């Protein structure tokens, strides 16, 4: 499936669901002095991340939109880091590919599922007390339970249905004509917290949202009703694997307080805070797996992109 193709041609209409690409480098470090330099590349359906880990520590990351093909998107994500650091693929000792396009990362030495990578990444970002991980990406939602080493003990995923994924949120953002980054904030600007939209299916929820608007709800209130529905849905998935303290949220949804705060309220557990962009958890986990593999097997030969 092709995420880019689904978007209307530029200039046709404003794309309210667009988000910004970004690159971050730890300026206090220099990759040239690292003994081991590894990469994790997470090619998701909507965004692709590349994380560089130097001697087992996070060094740099980039988050880019996934293009029409996975190999190019993987390379593009690496170029985000390369452009700011001067690093080339020849300098890297091991590359792990993950995410939905993981088998299409041409310069990766190994593919590891995003479930294992997210758990590993969250264990690094949130520390070894992380037990429950929620990852909501553009086209899927994952609930993971892991042990103190970041090893997965129980997981489930939902990538069949758009409800409860970032895509469902994009549909509402488009319907309401409100940029996706504003949805969370607006959802709290209501006179009274509404009941959740009752339809799970995004197609039916769309009709329901229109009916609510017609029935006198403000846009913000409809957004609140939708965020609540999303939160309830996520919580029901989390409950299948069992929720424990040490709750960590990754993926694009972490940036939507409208959903996160409602999930926390339903669970009665606060999500752990992180300074690092939580969207990179999968790629970070991949780079950490790569680091361990270098420790065990030694550096791999660089592969051509």
């Amino acid at each position, binding site marked *: 499936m092709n995420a880019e193709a689904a978007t209307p041609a530029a200039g046709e209409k404003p794309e309210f669901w667009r988000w910004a690409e970004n690159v971050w480098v730890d300026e206090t470090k220099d990759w040239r002095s690292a003994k081991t330099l590894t990469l994790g590349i997470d090619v998701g359906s909507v965004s692709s991340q590349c994380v560089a880990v130097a001697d087992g520590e996070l060094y740099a990351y980039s988050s880019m939109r996934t293009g029409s093909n996975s190999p190019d998107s993987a390379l593009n994500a690496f170029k985000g880091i390369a452009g700011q650091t001067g690093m080339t693929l020849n300098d890297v000792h091991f590359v792990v590919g993950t995410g939905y396009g993981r088998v299409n990362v041409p310069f990766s030495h190994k593919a590891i599922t995003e479930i294992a990578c997210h758990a590993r990444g969250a264990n690094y970002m949130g520390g070894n007390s992380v037990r429950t991980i929620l990852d909501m990406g553009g086209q899927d939602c994952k609930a993971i339970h892991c042990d103190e080493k970041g090893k997965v003990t*129980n*997981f*489930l995923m939902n*990538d069949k249905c758009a409800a409860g994924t970032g895509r469902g949120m994009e549909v509402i953002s488009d319907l309401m004509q409100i940029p996706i980054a504003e949805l969370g904030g607006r959802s709290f600007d209501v006179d009274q917290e509404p009941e959740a939209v009752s339809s*799970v299916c995004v197609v039916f929820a769309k009709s329901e949202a229109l009916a609510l608007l017609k029935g006198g709800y403000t846009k913000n209130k409809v957004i609140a009703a939708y965020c609540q529905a999303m939160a309830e849905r996520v919580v029901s998935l989390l409950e299948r694997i069992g929720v424990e303290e040490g709750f960590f949220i990754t993926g694009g949804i972490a940036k939507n307080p409208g959903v996160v705060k409602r999930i926390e309220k339903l669970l009665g557990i606060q999500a752990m805070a992180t300074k690092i962009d939580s969207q990179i958890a999968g790629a970070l986990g991949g780079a950490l797996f790569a680091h361990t593999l270098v420790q065990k097997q030694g550096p791999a030969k660089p592969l051509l992109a």
Partner: protein
Amino acid sequence: MIANYGYKDGSGEYYISIDTDQCITCPVGRACLGACPKGMFESMVDDYDDEVVHVKEQFRRSLAYDCAECKPSTGRGPLPCASACTPGAIGHSW
């Protein structure tokens, strides 16, 4: 590891759970692989280098339909997959 394959959509929740720790020491020679009339299960090496069973990718998004024949709306017998797995590692959520 408990691996849950499947999904939840507006019509319900459809997950097949596999307790993969039990696959490692499978005493029945992976009987589940042949038991499923649709051949939905497959043996593979997981991310932690253990050889376990999983539900093939192409079935994970359509379990409600793919499992339908083993689940007649009335007069349902035991499920072939769960019966074949005598250690009880396979479960259905619906």
